[in-house]
């Protein structure tokens, strides 16, 4: 499988040859894991900056719930966790070769992911209306940067998920090969996990 990708764009090459045992997982999955390492460091820089700034000036943060709408975001968090569950279901359906279930669960994941972004847009609009903007002190700076970049990641995830769903509707994923579903799933769970950390430190503490 390692060579599969290279072979697709080059059929003058020799037939599939052997290779040295590598990581034991196929390229796309390994690549995604490695890429997620990079993503961890990206959020580390934002979260690290947040922690340092907040310890430097704790008085610049309003008590939890005073500015931010915690109940709405809690519901939104619940939505995102649900989308991780539907993602797991989609992957399980792909493994079973159950095309109908795969399509439904993927569609559900896309919809829930999109509504998470929708709720976040609504939340931003409300906050800006109240006068809470990125230039509103360190609180506004960190809040919008961190949640904004998370939202950007969810948006990218939703777009990729739409592509995977479209391919699922074309029957591209079989019980033996459903790499796209697994790889997007890794990304999706990661983004979900980051949100749980952000929700805790930005909204609840």
């Amino acid at each position: 499988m390692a060579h599969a990708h290279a072979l697709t764009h080059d059929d003058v090459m020799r037939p599939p040859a052997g290779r040295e045992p590598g990581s034991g997982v196929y390229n796309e999955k390994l690549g995604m894991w490695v890429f997620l390492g990079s993503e961890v460091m990206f959020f580390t820089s934002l979260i690290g900056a947040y922690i340092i700034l907040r310890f430097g000036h704790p008085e610049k943060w309003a008590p939890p719930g005073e500015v931010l709408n915690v109940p709405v975001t809690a519901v939104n968090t619940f939505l995102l966790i649900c989308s991780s569950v539907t993602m797991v279901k989609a992957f399980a359906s792909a493994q079973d070769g159950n095309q109908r279930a795969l399509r439904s669960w993927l569609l559900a994941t896309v919809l829930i992911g999109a509504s998470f972004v929708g709720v976040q847009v609504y939340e931003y609009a409300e906050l800006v209306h109240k006068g809470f903007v990125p230039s509103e002190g360190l609180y506004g700076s960190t809040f919008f940067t961190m949640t904004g970049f998370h939202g950007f990641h969810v948006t990218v995830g939703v777009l990729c998920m739409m592509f995977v769903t479209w391919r699922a509707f074309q029957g591209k994923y079989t019980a033996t090969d459903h790499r796209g579903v697994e790889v997007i799933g890794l990304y999706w769970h990661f983004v979900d996990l980051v949100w749980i950390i952000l929700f805790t430190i930005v909204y609840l503490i």
Partner: protein
Amino acid sequence: MASTAAVVHEPALEHAHADDRPFIRKYIFSTDHKIIGIQFLLMSLFFLLIGGMLAMVIRWQLGFPGRAMPGGGVLPETMAPGGIVLPEFYNSLVTMHGTFMVFFAIMPLLVGVFGNYLIPLKIGAPDMAFPRINMASFWIAVPAGLIMLAGFFVEGGHAAAGWTGYAPLSANPELTGVSLGQQLWCVSLIILGLSSIMGSFNYITTIINMRAPGMIWFRLPLSIWALFITAILVLLAMPILSGALIMLLFDQTLGTHFFLPAQGGQPLLWQHLFWFFGHPEVYILILPAMGMVSDIIANGSRKPIFGYTSMVLAIIAIGALGWGVWGHHMFMSGMNPTLGTGFMISTLLISVPSAIKTFNWMGTMWGGNIRFHVPMLHAVAFVSMFVIGGLSGVFMATTPVDIYIHDTYFIVAHLHYVLFGGSLFAIFAAVTFWYPKMFGRLMNPLWGKVHFWLTFIFFNAVFFPMHGLGAQGHMRRIYDPTEYEFLAPLQGVNRMITISAFLLFTAQIIFLVNFIAGWFKGAKAGPNPWQDNGLEWATPSPPPHGNFPVTPHVYRGPYEFSSPLAVDDDYLPQSRKLETDREPAVLPAGD
């Protein structure tokens, strides 16, 4: 998983025969790692030239402050009216010389060019794990470079806060008068970071998963080990810079307060983030150089590399320790002095793996049968110059001495001994060494030697005296040293350095001409002109699309020069099967 060799991602686009591919798919939007490597080579040599030209203007101003620069009249009024460099333009020059050299010349030359070109060839793979992401990584780097160039032509001039972009100077446009230039600087580097990250996870996946049968980890050439560790550093360090740049960009454009003290933001936070990226970055700029020099020194000496295992461990140690030393850039910043002591110790410890590498290179040459081809000359010069850069680092690592020499020409000397004397000499070595593989022809060896000696002499004439300037307390990044009485006696040295710098720059024209002429007129190289052992030399020059007519099997390490097993030759290629060799266990493709 079962075989998926039949899985085709985009059949319509990808199915054409290699030779049928139209020009644009073959040479412009190519997914072939070799073409992408050469594209990176041309791009970064262009930016190397730009960076060098900026350095010439800097040197003119320092050697002859306030005098009209010959030919400087072509520059617009906002930069150098009548050829006299303005202080605001000088600050942009210093900033952009550093930025172009670090991010658009040395880093892509080492990682973009040789990471791309060498990894699949040296591990026996047909291409990268993700060829299209690889192509995208180049075509993302190009607009990043163009945006960075565009900054010179916008209102207010280009970024002028140093290549390190220290906040609040970089965050608050009122302090420099530069707003759009500084924003373009941020945007360009964010885009470049994305390109680097795409490259790095591709390299890592390729090296882990796509080695030819028998290419076990401890048979990898040191260049590949170094590129592997470098890719991990790029992967983990670049996103830190991206995060910091995004915050800086928001401070400039959205009115956030991350690094602006008025609302509680912290200027030192920028420095911590920048150097947490920046120190691994320093090793990104030297590890591949060390790896490729190791390959070339073993080849030139006709000897196995001395202490292969400790060389690998030293690369890993440098890569790991590199994460714990960033504070040594900040001894004078107001950081807690107790932290300074910790960072001093961790920094000094890095000299241990560096010394291991240096002595092992010498050990490789000891008892050798040394051939002084042009790559070998540059590689030996690398060792010699890197040692100077490494030793001068001890002065700055030592906190009390750093109090005096921090931000003086001593650091300018140090970093140029590492980045020019080190990285760039290694790049010259590597370009001349792998040029015949890339283009099928050799560069002219006589002109190669002339270029080498002129570069070596004038490089030292430029940068060695800078240690002395630093020892006299000469600050860096000052537009006019004659403002200070204690610097006045040093003006003669500054002028001598400037003249040497012009000669150094002129000598590079020889390389440029040789590089271009070799493409058309060089002698045919044949598959293995240096009689080397690496897998890339077991395939035609240049290698065909897909690299190897038959997947090579690997029977030994890459440095079996002068092996008693090689009866006729003094080298023994990794893929040459002797009667005593066993076939490696083969994992079938597609699983």
